[in-house]
């Protein structure tokens, strides 16, 4: 499964911050940790803040911290902030043909399995079981 860069950065940021929810990390610190662009990560963090998953704090000790419920927040909740919803994307050439429809059913099957997996793993479960 190919995730957009913003989605991967969103997952990295949430999981890193949720590891120690009392700690704040700046966009620059997170960017260094994952070796990614601080500018790109700052945009991702604003999206996560708008979704009430992280909170930004100003000042000398400012930065971001995780504020959601780790047992109630699933990987899909994060992915859905950055990836287009299934069915929301523009139609592509050939989709209306019989071959396009048959292929579409296979792709829907794959999407459903991927979504089920992402919805079944909470931030808490991944941090406890997956690291």
């Amino acid at each position, binding site marked *: 499964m190919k995730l957009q860069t913003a989605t991967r950065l969103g997952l990295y940021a949430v999981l890193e911050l949720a590891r120690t929810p009392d700690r704040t990390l700046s966009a620059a610190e997170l960017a260094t940790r994952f070796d990614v662009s601080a500018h790109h990560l700052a945009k991702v963090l604003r999206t996560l803040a708008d979704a009430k998953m992280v909170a930004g704090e100003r000042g000398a000790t400012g930065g971001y911290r995780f504020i959601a419920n780790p*047992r109630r927040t*699933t990987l899909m909740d994060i992915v859905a902030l950055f990836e287009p919803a299934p069915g929301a994307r523009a139609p592509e050439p050939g989709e209306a043909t019989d071959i396009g429809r048959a292929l579409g059913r296979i792709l829907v099957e794959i999407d*459903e*399995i991927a979504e*089920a*997996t992402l*919805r*079944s*793993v*909470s931030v*808490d*479960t991944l941090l*406890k*079981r997956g690291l």
Partner: protein
Amino acid sequence: MSKPLLHLRAAEPADLAAISGLDARLTGSAKTAYWQGMLERYAGGPPERQFLVAETAQGTLAGFVAGEVRAWEFGQPPAGWIFAIEVDPKLRLGGVGSALFEALAERFRAQGVDRLRTLVDRKDHSILAFFRAQGMTAGPSLQLDRAIG
């Protein structure tokens, strides 16, 4: 939520009303004959078949789990299969399901198996999340399906 005081024991035929009642509340359909058959086959059966209930300190049903060690079906070596696990919704997130899961795993371990398996509706995200939280991941098989009617 604080963890309720639980007593785990093997299911008995007298548990039928409580088990089928909890299932009916959770699924919206009464299947008393099915649960009666399950209790007849699994309650007090051989050790590879297990049907366990969790009771609250007041003696009411908190949840149940049923499963069996199966070998070589679909070419798979012996594994413990979980057929059903249900918890009173009022007691969810209190450790009842985890206690039942661990108790069943322990009994299967005693039968010499080292894998636990189950099947889950892929749109039932809450039960999927429960099994994930117990450490389960996608297994080696894919379930396939087609209409024949």
